[in-house]
């Protein structure tokens, strides 16, 4: 384990790098595989110098569902936002809300913030100093409690499983 | 297309020269940056304008200028971009230092402080 920590600090990163490389070079052969593996081994060692901590995954099981939900949400809310943009502006009631966080892992918070931002209609504006609240700007706020609950259910809960 | 590029160069030079003639170091640097855009476009256009024929050779395509645009001006522009970038960096730092040391960002701060904005 210690050996792995030392020479392979983050398996996800290594894998990501290998995939990245192979995607980029657009060819799949022994030489490129060797190169990808080499980079996958070397770069994380180097990146540890920048990274404070690598993300440790808990369970990856909720991930596929989360991605699908997210994709769907992006699609749907895009349509909604498009409608709002095209409609008269007076009907839009935008507002800030403080979203109370339950997730404590910083990577989880980041992922949640990403999800919120990527989903149209909401954008994370800030994280409170104690990391317990996210400031979210909502383009068209109907029901604050419902929105908070929605986010919690759709994103935060799966994320808490992924980033324990 | 030629007219568009030429007029674009002209507008960049116009804005750049006007800014270069200003009295404050930062404005001059802005002007020089705009001028470098114009310069890059001009050198680039010395190879004439060709759409969709990048000078990257591909198999099955003969390596002639019929299939590829003139690569030389591109190489020149690359060098020019790098060099003007280096110069801009030095100029910015120099402007900072000059401002810090002479307590004015007037381009002629060092010798004359007669309060007039422009002496050129």
């Amino acid at each position, binding site marked *: 384990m210690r050996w792995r920590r030392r020479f392979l600090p983050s398996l996800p990163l290594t894998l990501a790098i290998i995939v990245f490389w192979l995607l980029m070079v657009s060819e799949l052969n022994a030489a490129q595989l060797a190169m990808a593996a080499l980079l996958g081994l070397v770069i994380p060692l180097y990146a540890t110098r920048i990274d404070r901590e690598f993300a440790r995954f808990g369970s990856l099981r909720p991930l596929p569902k989360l991605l699908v939900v997210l994709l769907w949400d992006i699609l749907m809310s895009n349509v909604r936002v498009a409608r709002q943009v095209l409609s008269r502006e007076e009907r839009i009631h935008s507002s800030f809300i403080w979203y109370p966080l339950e997730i404590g892992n910083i990577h989880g918070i980041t992922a949640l913030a990403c999800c919120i931002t990527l989903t149209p209609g909401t954008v994370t504006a800030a994280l409170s100093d104690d990391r317990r609240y996210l400031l979210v700007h909502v383009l068209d706020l109907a029901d604050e409690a419902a929105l908070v609950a929605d986010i919690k259910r759709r994103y935060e809960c799966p994320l808490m499983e992924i980033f324990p | 297309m030629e007219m568009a590029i030429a007029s674009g160069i002209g507008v960049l030079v116009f804005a750049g020269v006007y800014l270069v003639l200003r009295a404050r170091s930062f404005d001059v640097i802005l002007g020089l940056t705009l001028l470098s855009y114009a*310069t890059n476009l*001009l050198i680039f256009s010395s190879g004439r304008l060709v759409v969709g024929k990048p000078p990257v050779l591909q198999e099955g395509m003969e390596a002639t200028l019929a299939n590829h645009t003139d690569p030389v001006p591109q190489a020149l522009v690359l*060098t020019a971009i790098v*060099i*003007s970038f280096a110069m801009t960096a030095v100029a910015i730092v120099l*402007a900072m230092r000059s401002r810090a040391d002479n307590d004015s960002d007037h381009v002629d701060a060092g*010798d004359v402080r007669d309060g007039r904005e422009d002496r050129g």
Partner: protein
Amino acid sequence: MSHLPILPILIPLLGGALSLFVEHRRIGTVVQRSVAWVFMLATLAASILLALRAHEGPVLVYLLGDWPARIGIALMVDRLSALMVLTTSLLAGACLLHACSGWDRRAPHFHALFQLQLMGLNGAFLTGDIFNLFVFFEVMLIASYGLLLSGGRGVRMSAGLHYVAFNVAASTLFLIALGMVYGVFGTLNMVEIATRVAGIPAGSLPLAKATIGLLLVVFCAKAALMPLYLWLPEAYTRAPAAVAALFVIMTKVGIYSVLRVGSLMLGEDAGPLAGYGWDWMLPAAVAGLALATLGVLAASRLRVLVAYVVLVSATTLFIAFGLRSAGTIAAGLYYLVHSTFVAAALFLIADLVRRGRGDAGDVLRAFPPAPGVRVVAGAMFLVGAVSVAGLPPLSGFIGKTMLLQAIPEADIRWAWPALLGSSMLVIVGLTRAGTRIFWKPVPVLPALPDGPRPVRGQLRLPETIATMVLLALGVAMSVAPGPVTAYTRAAAEQLLAPSTYIDQVRAAMPQGRRP
């Protein structure tokens, strides 16, 4: 094959790169200076060999990357190039010696910047490709910014801003001209351009003229020809002594480029472009000479005065080269070499004075230098002033006499009054400066509390030797001018026969490739 032509570029580059590795506090000055000197001397040796080789006659062509000159970059070394490189190396040696009296420790990266500046200068003189010339111009310039600003503060920074901004603007213009050159001629090799100039179709003639006109404007700006000289005095006077002395060669790069372009692209064989632009340069040179001379009179500080002396010599060179006869060019080249050494020496002397007079600096007012400095600095100033003013028996006189002799009958009526009158006024200015600085009594009473205070200036051996070396080079040129004048004469003839030059360059073939 002989790699001699490229050595004056590569040696300083290597020196500069290595300097970066030895410039640590733990390593110490001795090692840094040793590295600097090893490469300096190697460059000097290469320059001497190169000059000897170039003097044999044929143009030395070095095809970089073994590509034919028309598609790659070629170094083309004729007598003129080699002469300039040798001059640069000799000057740089003295400047380095001067800097080793202490400035090199106060200016971060001095040795690296110095070597790279040398690389830029040599590259500019040796290259035969006009875009490569631009690149080396930039190497030279940015190294000069570094040398000017490293370790500096205060007014030097604002002077530096002026210098940098002006040069960046001029470089932008250079690039525009280069774009035009490629667009019009389809090549960047100067010899290739020269072969295409004559055949330019009538419809493209104004365009070609504008292109070369812009090039000349750039070179004249670097050479500080009127009215593009306004940047020079401040920059040169604010630079540290060793750097200011080295800068003297920088205006010469512009002049060299004018000569080169003039010889190849505006020479006898240039068809409709023959002689284009020169008609304007002569009046500009005369007007510039007048203004520079007035500047010598107006100078309120010794270094400003020397900066204007540099301008006087630059404009004198433009007159010499503008007349475009073998005699004037030969005389001009002699004058160029001489004025480089002497003006550099004067900058070093001015610095000595500045240090030796404490708070009074080099301001031209009655305040004596420290006694320790006075005699040596005064004697050196006398030699330098006599030299630069064109008084016998030193090099300035020989240069000026040869120039007067060579000026064609038709041009005597304006060129002679200009040259002689300017000499006259320069003498007046130098005399005033010299008497004010060196001929003031040491005050018996202690200075006023708020007035400038004299200091116990002491001579540092390296800087004294450096100054003396420069002056000695000038004196040597006057005692035995024969070899130098023979060389410059041959160089001038080579310049006036561009077709030979072109043929020799075009005959150079790659070794390991098909041509």
